[in-house]
């Protein structure tokens, strides 16, 4: 399953995607961290700027205080114009828009012994207009007894330092939490009063708590910007008191002016990265230390602070997951559509083409597959044309094969009228045309030549050369040379025509049919087997000569022998002995020898058939590697006559004329002729009357002259019957009692020197042997 392209591509894609996702996740985590750091940084910056703002205000306030102190000194030393002073104060306040209010407060009775309270106070109304408030210089307020007054006046020095009061809740007029900064008015080194500037803490705190550190940074995120549940603390560390806090868990009013230690989460060294856990929530503290020991701390819930960032990144993760899911699906889909489907289509078509269907391969897209398909189509067409070409060559080869086969004598029996010899030959060509051949012909009236040969090499060239050699031998043989000269001439001629380095092994025999004299020559060929009548086959070890076509002047040794009637010679090519079975073992000469000696028949045709069967059985299914060519020649001579007729009474005349002709040809005595005549008639009659009760059959007879015997053999394929088992008639009975039948077989027994019956291969064979008697 994982072996398909589909699986592999998808697995690769998944692995790549996983790596990509990991990288992205890593990047996301880092960038999220960075973003958070950036946000913190950014907030620190905005806090800085806010602190600067406060600082600026303080500076302004101090300037303001100095101006007021100057005015206060002037008023004390000069004509003490109340109206002018009011105007100047108003003007000063208008110049210091950050100031909420402030005033000049003289010590009691110092300006005027009769006047306890001399003070000037201005403040900003709701419309930001500076208003002079005269309500402070009276008994009800009694400013010298106010805490801020006491605090400031107790701390001022002639160096005109700025003193800050503890925050206090103003329950007159503005009703807010205030802090007052002040300095003394010194005239000639004597402290005559103080000047103050009021700060309204609540508005500052409001601004602080509403500071949106990420407003700008995260303005691109819709949900970003609003930080809720944050709170601030403003305190003075030099004097250790709380100026203001928006801590929702504490009551601001009660704590103002108290020690910072009363804030549960407060510590000396808070920093942005030291998270505070307060009421089960994590807070990021931003700390800003300012002049005069003032310290501003803003605590922002961690979750709130990074909510937008976290939300944003979780969106990104979701999108990524979605992409991670959708990409493999898309990949699978597109691969299926653009790769697997065309491949499947190609496979389908290829299978169909393989089965022989004629289909045009066409795929339109994608382009690569279209190209592949057209290449494939072209290839298929090429293969088809090659196949056709090959088939043509094959058919030409088979034509060549049949021409080759037809050029060999292949009508058997080749000389049906001749009874003095029997010949049979066969060639079973291997797959391709080969160089084996055989031939036989009369070279003159008496001499018959047979030969079997093997041209080196295979295929068309060998076959063509074989044809040349065959024709050449035939032509030269007809010219009447002696066997030795004939072979020498043939060799020379082959050498002349042979430009391709072919050579020919050949075994040839030239037999004088009338005398049985045979010249036999072996030119580098397999040794033939000779079977003398009534003996076994034996390899005929001849002096081996060079194959033909090698040395132009080669000398050839001829072996001469005389064949007796019934002798048989078997020749073959190496296709027989080198027939190979599956385990690579060859058939070999020994097997051939044994095979032949197990064959009882001495008819060439049957011998060849049986050898072939034996080879086929041996090689079994192994393909035939070489031509299997054999030729068997049986010499019957003129001492051997055969007769064959249908077993019909009308054919009796044929029989006795055959007997008489043979006898006269062989110069047999009248008496013997008579005997043969009588016996022949009896056996003929027996076969004709009794052997074939239901059908027609044949009767075969042979007359042989062997040594000094005349042998008459009858053969029929009828019902089994041994006439010799019939009891002899009593010839001494009186004639009246003698039966008419049974005479014939009795006489036959009497006349023969020996008589045998055998049943063999569904044939009744009766052999009659007569001693030859010369006619006196």
């Amino acid at each position, binding site marked *: 399953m994982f072996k398909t392209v589909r699986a592999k591509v998808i697995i690769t894609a998944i692995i790549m995607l996983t790596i990509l996702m990991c990288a992205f996740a890593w990047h996301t985590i880092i960038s999220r961290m960075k973003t958070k750091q950036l946000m913190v940084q950014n907030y620190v910056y905005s806090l800085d700027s806010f602190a600067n703002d406060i600082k600026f205000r303080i500076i302004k306030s101090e300037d303001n205080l100095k101006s007021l102190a100057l005015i206060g000194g002037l008023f004390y030393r000069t004509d003490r114009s109340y109206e002018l002073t009011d105007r100047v104060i108003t003007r000063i306040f208008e110049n210091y828009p950050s100031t909420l209010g402030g005033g000049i407060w003289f010590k009691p009775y110092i300006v005027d012994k009769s006047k306890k309270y001399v003070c000037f106070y201005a403040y900003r109304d709701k419309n930001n207009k500076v208003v002079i408030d005269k309500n402070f210089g009276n008994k009800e307020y009694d400013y010298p007894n106010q805490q801020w007054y006491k605090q400031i006046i107790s701390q001022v020095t002639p160096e005109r330092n700025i003193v800050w009061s503890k925050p206090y809740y103003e329950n007159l007029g503005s009703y807010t939490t205030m802090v007052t900064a002040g300095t003394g008015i010194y005239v000639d080194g004597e402290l005559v009063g103080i000047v103050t500037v009021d700060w309204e803490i609540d508005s500052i705190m409001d601004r602080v708590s509403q500071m949106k550190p990420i407003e700008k940074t995260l303005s691109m995120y819709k949900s970003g910007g609003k930080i809720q549940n944050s709170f601030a603390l403003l305190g003075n560390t030099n004097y250790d008191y709380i100026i203001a806090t928006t801590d929702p868990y504490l009551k601001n009013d009660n704590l103002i002016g108290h020690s910072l230690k009363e804030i549960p989460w407060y510590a000396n060294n808070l920093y942005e990265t030291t998270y505070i856990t307060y009421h089960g929530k994590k807070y990021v503290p931003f700390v800003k230390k300012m002049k005069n020991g003032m310290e501003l701390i803003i605590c922002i819930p961690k979750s709130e602070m990074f909510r937008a960032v976290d939300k944003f990144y979780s969106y990104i993760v979701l999108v990524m997951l979605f992409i991670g899911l959708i990409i493999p699906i898309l990949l699978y889909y597109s691969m299926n559509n653009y790769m697997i489907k065309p491949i499947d289509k190609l496979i389908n078509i290829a299978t169909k083409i393989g089965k022989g269907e004629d289909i045009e391969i066409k795929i339109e897209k994608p382009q690569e597959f279209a190209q592949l398909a057209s290449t494939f189509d072209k290839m298929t067409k090429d293969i088809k044309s090659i196949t056709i070409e090959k088939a043509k060559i094959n058919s030409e080869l088979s034509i060549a094969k049949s021409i080759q086969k037809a050029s060999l004598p292949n009508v058997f029996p080749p000389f049906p009228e001749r009874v003095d010899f029997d010949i049979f030959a066969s060639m079973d060509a291997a797959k391709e045309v080969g160089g084996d051949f055989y031939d036989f012909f009369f070279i003159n009236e008496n001499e018959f030549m047979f030969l079997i040969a093997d041209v080196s090499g295979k295929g068309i060239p060998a076959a063509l050369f074989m044809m040349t050699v065959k024709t050449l031998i035939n032509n030269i043989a007809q010219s009447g040379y002696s066997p030795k000269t004939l072979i020498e001439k043939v060799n020379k001629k082959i050498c002349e025509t042979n430009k391709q380095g072919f050579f020919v092994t050949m075994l040839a025999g030239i037999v004088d049919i009338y005398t049985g004299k045979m010249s036999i020559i072996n030119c580098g060929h397999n040794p033939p087997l000779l079977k003398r009548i009534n003996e076994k086959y034996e390899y005929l070890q001849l002096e081996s000569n060079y194959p033909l076509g090698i040395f132009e002047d080669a000398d050839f040794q001829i072996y001469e022998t005389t064949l007796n009637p019934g002798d048989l010679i078997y020749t073959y090519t190496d296709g027989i002995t080198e027939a190979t079975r599956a385990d690579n073992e060859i058939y070999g000469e020994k097997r051939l020898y044994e095979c032949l000696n197990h064959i009882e028949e001495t008819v060439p045709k049957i011998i060849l058939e049986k050898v072939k069967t034996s080879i086929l059985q041996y090689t079994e299914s192994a393909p035939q590697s070489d031509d299997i060519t054999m030729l068997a020649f049986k010499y019957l001579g003129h001492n051997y006559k055969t007769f064959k007729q249908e077993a019909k009474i009308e054919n*009796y005349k044929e029989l*006795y004329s055959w007997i008489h002709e043979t006898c006269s040809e062989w110069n047999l005595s009248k008496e013997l002729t008579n005997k043969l005549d009588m016996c022949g*008639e009896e056996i003929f009659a027996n076969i004709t009357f009794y052997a074939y009760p239901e059908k027609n059959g044949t009767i075969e007879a042979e007359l042989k002259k062997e040594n000094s015997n005349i042998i008459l053999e009858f053969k029929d394929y009828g019902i089994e019957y041994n006439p010799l088992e019939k009891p002899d008639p009593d010839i001494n009975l009186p004639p*009246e009692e003698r039966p008419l039948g049974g005479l*014939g077989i009795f006489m036959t027994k009497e006349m023969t020197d020996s008589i045998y019956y055998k049943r063999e291969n569904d044939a009744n064979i009766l052999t009659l042997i007569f001693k030859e008697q010369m006619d006196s």
Partner: protein
Amino acid sequence: MDIKIKSNGFNTLFVQAAGRLDLDTSVEYGTTVKDAIEDSDTDIQEVVLDFSQITFISSFGLKIILELYKHMKDINGVLKLKDVSENLMNSFKMVGFDKFLVFE
């Protein structure tokens, strides 16, 4: 087979034939002789088979001779064989016919 049968006018038939007495001819030979005996106007008491022209006799020929012998015996006649060659005589002897046949 050319078979010539002559009667002497009384009771003797002379049978003359040439060639082989074998499978092919014997039956014809035997039938011809028997028919001649029956067809004769006189009572045949003697049949003389002239063998001078017979070259060959097979077992079938011998069988016919035995038949004729038995036939003559039945009608109280005599079968005589005339001029049997030595060659043929051997055949008669072989089957013991020489013991009862009359040769002239």
